[in-house]
């Protein structure tokens, strides 16, 4: 019994604290206020979960603490927003990315082994070709939306003519090819045989070229879609771009450094910097606000919806919770968080991939010795975690707005959640996120209404920054009581 208490000390302290807190909260706030605080907390908790879960999985499996996870969240938000509100920016840039990748992949089919020229010459060549291909390319008019600065530049004027666009695309494909050769020169590798696999890069290149003439009509088509469809597309595209970016990041920057773990962390910290600056360079330093899709924006007679079922019918912007309106979009965020939690849990518990991940968290070397290519699983998990974070970013965009500072804010809260929950534990990550979300919601409420201690004549109120900063104190408290976190295992 005593052993059990000792072993579960963190849990017991946690539950005790929650009971005390619940007592305080129920006696202080009336039920309807309490309900909206709790729901707000769940909303934030769901968003934090999307960042924390990936962070924790990646750390658990490959011991990499990804400081750029919040940056991926932010980039997801920007990409999703762009698809939703300004698809021409994506249509005019994504083909370039596809072309570079296609060129890179094509290098695998070339007889690189016979090349004796040193690799760095090819690198320089690739950079020069790429710079020539994008020479004079103007991003600013494409990035301008009706929302950001006065008036909108018509797409025909903002985007380059098809011929120039095609030349740029082909130029970048060549740059990718040269870079691919540079990468392979002097390495032990097998030249790819002619097979159906070759269709992948060729198909990508064709896709990039097909987009060129249809950019305008594709933009028109996307914008003519119903806002709900566009929103779903934004979630999908945002999440998958985040996943692609995460996979690329692991493959290119993290993988070469597994023997130097400190430098992995240093690289991810550098990516925070690069990611933020890149976003500023493309979308400008200012913020954007993403409009809610129709599902969550109807106002007028019959609103707020009396309950969740009624909302399915009338799509009101808010739902009545014990007599107080609560934004229906936040309910969606909570649901999204829940679905992703269950989905990830199923993936971890019920699939072979999940089994490999759980085993790898404990001993990735032994997984390798069983004949499983763990490195590939690493990349996959990195992509998965990044995708979750980016999905969270898109979901957060209509709720919190988008700005270059978004990433760091979520990174901080996710770190705190992870420290509270315990690193590498999926349940811990989820509960930590929930706790931080709830404490943020209560903190916001407290600083808003103010604190009135017995000896004070009037309540002392603060700004929301104080509530944000105070979550660090919770982290400090957990560190004092249980350094490994509530659910972490002692080392």
């Amino acid at each position, binding site marked *: 019994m005593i052993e059990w208490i000792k072993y579960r000390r963190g849990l017991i302290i946690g539950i005790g604290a929650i009971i005390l807190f619940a007592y305080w909260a129920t006696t202080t706030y009336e039920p309807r206020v309490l309900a909206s605080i709790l729901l707000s907390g769940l909303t934030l908790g769901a968003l934090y979960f999307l960042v924390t879960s990936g962070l924790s999985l990646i750390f658990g499996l490959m011991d990499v603490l990804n400081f750029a996870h919040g940056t991926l969240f932010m980039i997801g938000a920007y990409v999703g927003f762009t698809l939703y509100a300004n698809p021409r920016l994506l249509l005019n840039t994504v083909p370039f990315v596809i072309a570079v990748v296609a060129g890179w992949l094509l290098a695998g089919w070339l007889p690189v082994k016979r090349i004796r020229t040193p690799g760095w010459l090819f690198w320089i060549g690739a950079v020069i070709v790429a710079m020539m291909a994008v020479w004079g390319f103007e991003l600013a008019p494409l990035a301008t939306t009706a929302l950001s600065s006065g008036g909108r530049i018509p797409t025909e004027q903002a985007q380059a003519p098809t011929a120039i666009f095609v030349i740029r695309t082909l130029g970048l494909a060549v740059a990718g090819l040269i870079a691919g050769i540079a990468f392979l020169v002097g390495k032990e590798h097998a030249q790819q045989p002619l097979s159906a696999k070759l269709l992948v890069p060729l198909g990508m290149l064709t896709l990039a070229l097909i987009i060129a003439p249809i950019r305008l009509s594709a933009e028109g088509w996307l914008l003519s879609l119903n806002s709900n469809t566009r929103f779903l597309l934004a979630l999908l595209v945002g999440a998958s771009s985040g996943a692609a970016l995460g996979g690329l990041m692991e493959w290119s920057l993290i993988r070469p450094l597994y023997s130097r773990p400190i430098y992995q962390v240093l690289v991810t910290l550098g990516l925070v910097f690069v990611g933020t600056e890149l976003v500023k360079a493309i979308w400008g330093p200012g913020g954007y606000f993403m409009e809610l899709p129709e599902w969550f924006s109807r106002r007028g007679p019959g609103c707020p919806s009396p309950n969740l079922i009624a909302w399915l019918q009338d799509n009101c912007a808010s739902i009545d919770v014990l007599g107080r309106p609560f934004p229906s979009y936040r309910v969606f965020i909570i649901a999204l968080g829940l679905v992703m939690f269950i989905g990830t849990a199923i993936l971890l518990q019920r699939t*072979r991939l999940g*089994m*490999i991940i*759980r*085993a790898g*968290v*404990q*001993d990735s*070397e*032994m*997984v*390798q*010795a*069983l*004949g*499983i*290519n*763990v*490195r590939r699983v690493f990349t996959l998990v990195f992509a998965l975690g990044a995708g979750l974070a980016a999905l969270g970013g898109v979901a957060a965009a209509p709720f919190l707005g988008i700005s270059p500072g978004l990433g760091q804010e979520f990174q901080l809260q996710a770190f705190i959640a992870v420290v509270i929950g315990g690193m590498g534990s999926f349940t811990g990550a989820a509960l930590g996120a929930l706790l931080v979300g709830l404490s943020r919601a209560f903190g916001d409420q407290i600083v808003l209404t103010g604190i009135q201690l017995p000896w004070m004549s009037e309540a002392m109120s603060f700004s929301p920054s104080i509530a944000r900063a105070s979550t660090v104190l919770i982290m400090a408290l957990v560190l004092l009581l249980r350094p490994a976190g509530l659910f972490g295992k002692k080392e």
Partner: protein
Amino acid sequence: MSDVLLEVEHIHTFIGQFHILEGVSLKVRAGSITALLGRNGAGKTTTLRSIMGLNPPRSGQIRLAGEPIHGKPAYAIAQLGVGYVPEHRAIFRDLTVEENLRLAERRRGDLRRRSDFIMTLFPDLKRFYRHPGGKLSGGQQQMLAIARALVADNRLLLIDEPSEGLAPIIVEQIMAALRQMATETTILLVEQNFAMAAQLADEYYILDDGRNVQHGRMADLIHDHATINRYLGAG
């Protein structure tokens, strides 16, 4: 004379800056049990890890049935039919017995096919099939670690100290299982418990300080008390 399945030639392996193996060589005949003996720190575990690709040798060659495998990643070596049972019973503690075994499948249905054989060798595993590996006793964990190497079709098993820290009666059980396994596969066994190694192995290699010192037939070594005392401590 049967064929040589595994051939290790003059491998040099480093861990960090430490030169652990200084030119170890050995041959394992197909269908035999070969024991790798020596004191603590002689380089036995590192030899197994080098073969498995977990600590790849910096120089020297390793061939499996004539095919060079040094320099290949560990998963590729495993896929060629090498099973590894690490020391300290490194099973996956948070996974159930079933999941531990399922993870070792290389083709769908491996486990179903081999299940009966494994369960007759280690009936305990059947009883705890859905329990987490971490909840098993030390002996059961060792059985699970060995069973895991039996799920896929492995030509060669590398087994590191299976008797370490186990009660004599469990050791008996594991020895019986190893003997049974040897009828259909080849085993390279690292063992501190000389009595056990002597009963099981056909041939032996002795390592000392990362070098070969002696090898031959186990039947001859048993009577060579001088060697046993010198390289293996009290026999």
